[in-house]
């Protein structure tokens, strides 16, 4: 029998709409699959459907997940969908199916023996760790106009998880976090709500020069990091394990 492949846009809205349409097909879920982005290898005996993101349908799915599977599972789904992983749509879809069949859907994240739940669990953990790393290693640089600017290069789309943390922390300051891999900015004007902006052709040369004290602070911190180390315990391997090299190009204390 024919299999259905639903091709969804790579976004929360796109994939949630896909889940809505999958249920609307009213056939056994084992034969329906959700694919994110372009189809690569077309299969024989498969029907492909392009799914247009639909806010209303996505909202219904989000509401159902929240109500039946609980807030914890919902957040983990959001985290999983922030990953760059071809299987994420399928995993979330099948996990929702599994959760809705359970007596108590709120226990879904504990059901790690289910391979789809396990997949979502792993993706969510990946995002959670990535967010945590950037909370640790992101650095702001003060510009002449008083704005704090930060450039990051995360492996998954962390801005929506990162911005609230800094908005709570620096409510009276203007700051911008720039995800250079995706061309997205989180912008926080002082004492206001933060928002996201996309700008594909952003050139970093266009940002204002540093403020007067900025380089001095960078130097002070680099000096502090140097002084705080105990030479009798030197252990560069441990340092690298705790702080993977890919972060260092974004950290002022490691210089250029």
């Amino acid at each position, binding site marked *: 029998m024919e299999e259905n492949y639903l091709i969804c846009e790579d976004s929360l809205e796109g994939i949630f709409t896909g889940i809505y349409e999958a249920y609307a097909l009213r056939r056994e879920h084992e034969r329906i699959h959700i694919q994110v982005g372009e189809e690569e290898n077309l299969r024989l005996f498969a029907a492909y459907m392009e799914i247009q993101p639909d806010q209303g349908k996505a909202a219904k799915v989000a509401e159902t997940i929240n109500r039946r599977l609980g807030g914890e599972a919902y957040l983990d789904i959001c985290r999983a969908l922030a990953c760059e992983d071809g299987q994420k749509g399928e995993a979330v879809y099948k996990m929702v199916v599994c959760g809705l069949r359970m007596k108590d859907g709120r226990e879904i994240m504990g059901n790690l023996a289910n391979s789809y739940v396990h997949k979502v669990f792993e993706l969510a953990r990946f995002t959670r760790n990535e967010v945590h790393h950037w909370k640790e290693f992101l650095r702001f640089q003060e510009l002449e106009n008083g704005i704090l600017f930060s450039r990051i290069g995360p492996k998954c789309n962390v801005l929506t998880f990162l911005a609230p943390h800094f908005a709570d922390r620096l409510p009276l300051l203007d700051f911008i976090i720039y995800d250079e891999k995706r061309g997205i900015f989180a912008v926080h004007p002082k004492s206001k709500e933060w928002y996201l902006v996309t700008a594909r052709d952003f050139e970093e040369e266009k940002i204002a020069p540093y403020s007067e004290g900025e380089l001095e602070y960078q130097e002070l911190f680099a000096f502090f990091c140097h002084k705080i180390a105990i030479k009798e315990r030197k252990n560069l391997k441990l340092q690298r394990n705790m702080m993977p090299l890919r972060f260092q190009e974004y*950290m002022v204390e490691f210089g250029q």
Partner: protein
Amino acid sequence: MYYKAAEEMGIKEKLGILTDAAKYDVACTSSGVDRRGDGKGMGNTELGGICHSFSSDGRCISLLKILFTNECIYDCKYCINRKSNDVPRASFTPDEVCELTMGFYKRNYIEGLFLSSGILYNPDFTMELICQTIYKLRREHGFQGYIHVKAIPGADPMLIQKAGFFADRMSVNLELPTADGLRQLAPNKHRKNILAPMRQIQNGIEANKNELVLYKKAPYFVPAGQSTQMIIGATPENDYQLMMVAENLYQKFGLKRVFYSAFVNVNEDKELPALPGGPPLLREHRLYQADWLLRYYGFQAQELLSEERPNFNVLLDPKADWALRHLEVFPVEVNRAEYQLLLRIPGIGVKSAQRIVRARKNGALRFEDLKKIGVVLKRALYFITCGGRMMYRTKIEEDYITRNLLSVKEKLPFDKDGMTYRQMSLFDDMSFRMPPEREDCAKAAFGQL
């Protein structure tokens, strides 16, 4: 009384001297309190703490860890800042500390301030300066990030009380585990003076909890609890004595954390042991592992060590060591065992034990499910059954399991040239080179999360 802040000295030079002087303090944690910002100042805190960088010794940099001054009237033999040492001296002003903290914090370099100090003139004077600084930071600069300060033993209890309302965590260093050791190496310090502020803070935290029940808006007193640290390897105490002291501190003084600091010989004093192999890092590591067992795994110090076996096994971590001496408990059926018993199985940590309890509600677990959950089967397989069966046919016999566990290779946060291993040439075929996991390091090795 006034003090000279050596104003001709630049801020960078001061920072250098006073960081250098503060680096031997272990506690660089920013954990224990979850506080959102109120929108009117700067800063918040996260329950688990945040490390912002790692120095070349692999220790985490979470707080701006500095001394207020490295002037000191005391002459403790192990301390780089002792009176009789000829080292450059410097002092900050409260405003300089505030400015540095705010400048670093808004750039996301740090989670907050860790302020300790040498004793300038007398304990009261020093504590007063510390209080002034954190008062300014909280009230004038609106700082809501993490603050850890030392309570100076011998200072007026009123000053310690005052500091407690501005700080998140306070600590009084025990320095050395026993009163004897203290007498020998820190002639100006007395055990009783160290325990007094510790007790005062403990009582303050208790009283504050009751107040908070009555009035939700009562100010918080040391909300992230208090900690202490002791130097190991400078005096002849054994591990058993150390663990008993630590257990007492947890039980009788309600401490959040006890830190262990491998002794680094900076002064070459004749009273101090020579450590040709470098600081006793492996011993420190074992103590942290055991400390974890006390706090999260429901172990008692006396289960791990005794008068007859006063030191930890060099080759096995304390939990595996315990399991091998209690083979009568094993194998344990993972699908039925209580949480507390699951925690005692080598290869199963707190997280995986919690996941097992949750996952087995949905049906019996198999070995492959355990793997997904995060159980280290290579270690656990000798101690568990799943659905009544062991993973392989294995003997439940101490020598056999020990041999097999040793071949799995333990993950240690430092490798073979981590000095302590030189003497173990017998075991050169065992490599200690497996990289530790982030969590293991941060938590078990230094306990810095």
